[in-house]
């Protein structure tokens, strides 16, 4: 095979048996890779009712056919498993250098099953895999673990690992790779911890084989030249100020979630926006493999009490830990971000859970005695302290480690958890960006935008602006964006480059550039229609898993705060999110029933009938 390596590695942690498997070329073509391969194996090999922490759950780490090829942002892999936070699937994606190295080590994907009797790590050295003891690493943070493993194996190897949060089954523990990149969401790190697997170390050689290397090179040059011309005219915000630059847009559109989603604008927004980060703490930009954008931020904080070095914060972190907690102290936010990276925690759920706790205290439902410290809106020191306690499950951190839904439910007010399918939202307020609400409600992982991001057409004007306050017509466009996101996620690309540069403006963001790359890499000659169908197939296959796990329309919902309480202030004032109207249109566009179940005709068309 070309583009794909053509091999899968299976690791049974219970028996410590490791074996290689051929990647079926038909499965590869139908599911592309990454997210597609993940759902293919989940559907085939686990019962959707499985307890996420049981040995029967599996973890799939899958690269795509464009990972490591040199296609811009072809740097990524996807981690899929059954989520302990939501009970649905995870789709947690990361870049950096680990995914490319993993593919070069000889495998498109790794499938992990069972549970080890004692802590282990997996080392793959150019096609030879072995399990080694990780007893000496258990309890270590992600940075110490990475440093020790690089010494023990090869300084040129790449490491993905969990920190104490994953070991202690924090429901939103992350898998960190290359020190500070995160497959952050839905508790992938906790599932890895439940399997007693501390880390995966990969060392590769050579490069990914391409079907048409000359054509690929020429097309790549062309795409990169166009990109360079465009950014020479208008520098890209992502490069200049990182993702945190987006605060300027969300604040001024009135969709910057503030005070646990009670407000849409934040008085202290200037303090937490990307420009402040650049001015105060930026050391340098950092790029994932083959990425011309370099949105990553290497930062250093010297302010007393918050000293540290690392990467971040991203936009999602400054919303979740900043405006949402009314914290305008960027040093505290950045410090809490560092702690998340070191202990292995998702910054979104962490920040949103602290915000929820702040509201519970504010309304008198939770006493500060229970927490063991004061917890007022805006308290950056509390954020830092609680983040550390959560990662270690110390004191009140043990309750925060269950996420906002379980916390709010315990104190009798589940409506104060701003979640879908029990997962916390990224930082775009659906009352002022209607399709965003639909994306959160229908995402297979619960509150997320990265699996189909309406901010592009509602807030960024890509490919063009749609009225953010209008809900009619949003079902169809959101479906189109989810489909292309599935293709991007399966191919191994990053959404930040691909939507702008590899999709055509017409035909509902058709993935024309991705099609060209894929065909020259793999030689399988997808037609545009086949590729678009593959995107639909992935999303519908995910839905089948969710349906069998008991999810349907009732779970494609938003908190009443967003659907019944009009936004009290700012440029989105007076709006609620019209989720029900959008859902009807969306299911119809998808070929799902009004209850959110794929129809037999659709399954037939996609080759998914069982």
């Amino acid at each position: 095979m070309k583009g794909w390596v053509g091999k899968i590695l299976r690791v049974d942690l219970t028996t410590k048996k490791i074996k290689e498997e051929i990647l079926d070329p038909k499965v590869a073509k139908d599911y592309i890779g990454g997210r597609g391969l993940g759902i293919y194996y989940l559907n085939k090999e686990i019962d959707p009712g499985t307890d996420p922490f049981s040995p029967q759950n599996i973890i799939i780490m899958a690269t795509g056919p464009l990972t490591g090829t040199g296609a811009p942002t072809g740097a990524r892999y996807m981690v899929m498993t059954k989520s302990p936070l939501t009970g649905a699937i995870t789709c947690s994606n990361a870049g950096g250098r680990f995914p490319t190295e993993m593919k070069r080590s000889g495998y498109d994907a790794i499938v992990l099953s069972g549970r080890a009797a004692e802590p282990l790590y997996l080392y793959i050295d150019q096609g030879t895999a072995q399990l080694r003891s990780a007893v000496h690493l258990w309890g270590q943070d992600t940075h110490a673990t990475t440093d020790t493993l690089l010494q023990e194996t090869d300084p040129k190897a790449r490491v993905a690992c969990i920190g104490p949060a994953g070991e202690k089954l924090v429901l939103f523990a992350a898998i960190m790779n290359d020190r500070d990149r995160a497959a952050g969401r839905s508790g992938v790190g906790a599932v890895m911890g439940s399997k007693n697997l501390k880390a995966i170390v990969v060392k590769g050689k050579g490069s990914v084989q391409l079907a048409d290397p000359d054509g690929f090179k020429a097309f790549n040059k062309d795409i990169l030249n166009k990109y360079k011309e465009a950014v020479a005219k208008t520098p890209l915000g992502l490069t200049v100020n990182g993702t945190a630059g987006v605060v300027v847009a969300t604040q001024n559109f009135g969709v910057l979630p503030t005070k646990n989603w009670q407000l849409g604008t934040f008085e202290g927004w200037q303090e937490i926006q990307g420009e402040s980060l650049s001015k105060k703490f930026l050391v340098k930009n950092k790029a994932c493999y083959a990425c011309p954008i370099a949105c990553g931020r290497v930062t250093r904080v010297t302010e007393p009490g918050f000293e540290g070095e690392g990467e971040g914060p991203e936009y999602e972190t400054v919303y979740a830990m900043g405006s949402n907690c009314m914290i305008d102290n960027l040093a505290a936010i950045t410090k809490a971000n560092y702690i998340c990276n070191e202990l292995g925690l998702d910054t979104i759920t962490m920040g949103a859970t602290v915000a929820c706790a702040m509201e519970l205290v504010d309304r008198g439902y939770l006493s500060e005695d229970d927490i063991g410290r004061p917890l007022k809106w805006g308290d950056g020191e509390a954020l830092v302290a609680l983040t550390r306690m959560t990662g270690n499950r110390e004191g009140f951190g043990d309750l925060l480690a269950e996420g906002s839904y379980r916390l709010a439910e315990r104190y009798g007010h589940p409506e104060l958890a701003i979640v879908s399918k029990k997962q916390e939202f990224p930082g775009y307020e659906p009352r002022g960006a209607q399709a965003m609400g639909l994306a959160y409600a229908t995402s297979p992982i619960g509150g997320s935008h990265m699996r189909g991001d309406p901010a592009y057409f509602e807030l960024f004007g890509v490919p063009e602006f749609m009225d953010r306050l209008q809900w009619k017509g949003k079902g169809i466009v959101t479906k189109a964006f989810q489909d292309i996101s599935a293709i991007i996620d399966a191919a191994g690309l990053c959404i930040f480059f691909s939507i702008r540069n590899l999709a055509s403006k017409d035909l509902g963001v058709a993935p024309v550039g991705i099609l060209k790359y894929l065909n020259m890499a793999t030689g399988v000659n997808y037609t545009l229609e086949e590729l678009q169908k593959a995107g639909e197939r992935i999303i519908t296959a995910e839905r089948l898993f969710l349906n069998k796990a008991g999810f349907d329309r009732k779970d494609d919902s938003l908190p009443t705060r967003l659907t019944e309480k009009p936004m009290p202030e700012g440029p989105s004032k007076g709006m609620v999110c019209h989720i029900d109207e959008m859902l009807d249109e969306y299911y119809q566009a998808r070929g799902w029933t009004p209850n959110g179940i794929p129809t037999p005709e659709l399954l037939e068309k996609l080759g998914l009938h069982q």
Partner: protein
Amino acid sequence: MDVQVKLYGLFKKYAPEERQEFQLKLPPDSNVKKLLKILNIPFEQERTLLVNGQLAGLERRLESEDIIVIFSPMSGG
């Protein structure tokens, strides 16, 4: 009439004395085009322009006390 103007990011350089938020006196019956001309912002410069939090084009008429925000198009997050 008086409007409030907020220029962020790359657009800061068009602000009088580089103050990113300021009041501006406009002749009556002004539209967005007129405002850009007064501030010397080229029409072809890629931008996101909001009037009172909603997107607005060149022909949009401005009223007294409107808040106009201009920043570079963005993506990501």
